[in-house]
C-alpha cells in the first residue's frame, strides 16, 4: 500500500525527492509535466505517494513521477 509523502500546495521539499530516489530538479520538472498534461494549472494541489504515484485532490490518478524522469 503506497504511503502519502506530500499533500501540500507548495513545491515539494528535498524530503520528497529523497524518498523517491531522484533529484529535486527531476521532481520539479516531473510534477509540472504531470499537472500540465492533466489540464491542471501549476498552482493546483496534488498528492504524491512513495511509489511515485500522483493524484489530484479527489484521489484520481494523474500519473507517476518515475514515468517522467
Amino acid at each position, binding site marked *: 500500500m503506497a504511503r502519502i509523502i506530500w499533500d501540500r500546495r507548495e*513545491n515539494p521539499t528535498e524530503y520528497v525527492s529523497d524518498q523517491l530516489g531522484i533529484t*529535486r*530538479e527531476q521532481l*520539479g*520538472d516531473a510534477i*509540472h*509535466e*504531470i499537472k*500540465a*498534461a*492533466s*489540464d491542471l*494549472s*501549476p*498552482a493546483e494541489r496534488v498528492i504524491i505517494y512513495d*511509489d*511515485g*504515484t500522483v493524484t489530484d485532490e479527489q484521489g*484520481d*490518478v*494523474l*500519473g*507517476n513521477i*518515475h*514515468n*517522467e524522469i
Partner: protein
Amino acid sequence: MSKAMSSATSTTKSDNTMRAFATLRFAGDALDPDEISRVIKAKPTRAYRKGEKYRSGPHGPEVTGKTGVWYFSTRRKIPSKDLADHLNALERLIAPFGDQGNRLRELHDLMERENLQAHVTCFWRGPPGTHEPSIPSVATDALRRLPADITPDFATE
C-alpha cells in the same frame, strides 16, 4: 579566493542549475487529438480523449482522461535554458514562418467550434538570488491571439 574568481564560480553554478521549458495544451470535452495534430503537423507529447484510458508510462495504473487533452512540452526537445527559446518553439507550432496566419486561424476556428481552451505554462527554476525571467511579449503574441492564457511557474531553489 579573489572576488573575480568567486563571481565566475557563481555564474557557472547558476548556469548549471537553471532550467526552463514551456508547455502548450488544448483541452475540452469534444477535443479530437488527431484533429489538432493534423492542423499543427506535429506529434503531441501526450494526447487523449475525454474518458479514454491511457498509460503515462511503465509505472503506475491506467489513467482516465477527465477531458480531452492535446499536450506538447518543449522539455525534451529544446535544450536551451532561455525561456524565450521555448516559447518561440511553441509559437512556431501554431504560427510557422511564411504561413501568413492560416494555421492560427484554423486553430482559432477549431477552438470556437469545439469549445476548446488553450493554455501555456512556463517553467523556470534558478538558484537563490537569481532574478526570475520575464515572459517576452514578442515570443507570445501568436499564443495570446489563439487565445491561450499563459501561466508562469517560477521559483528559486
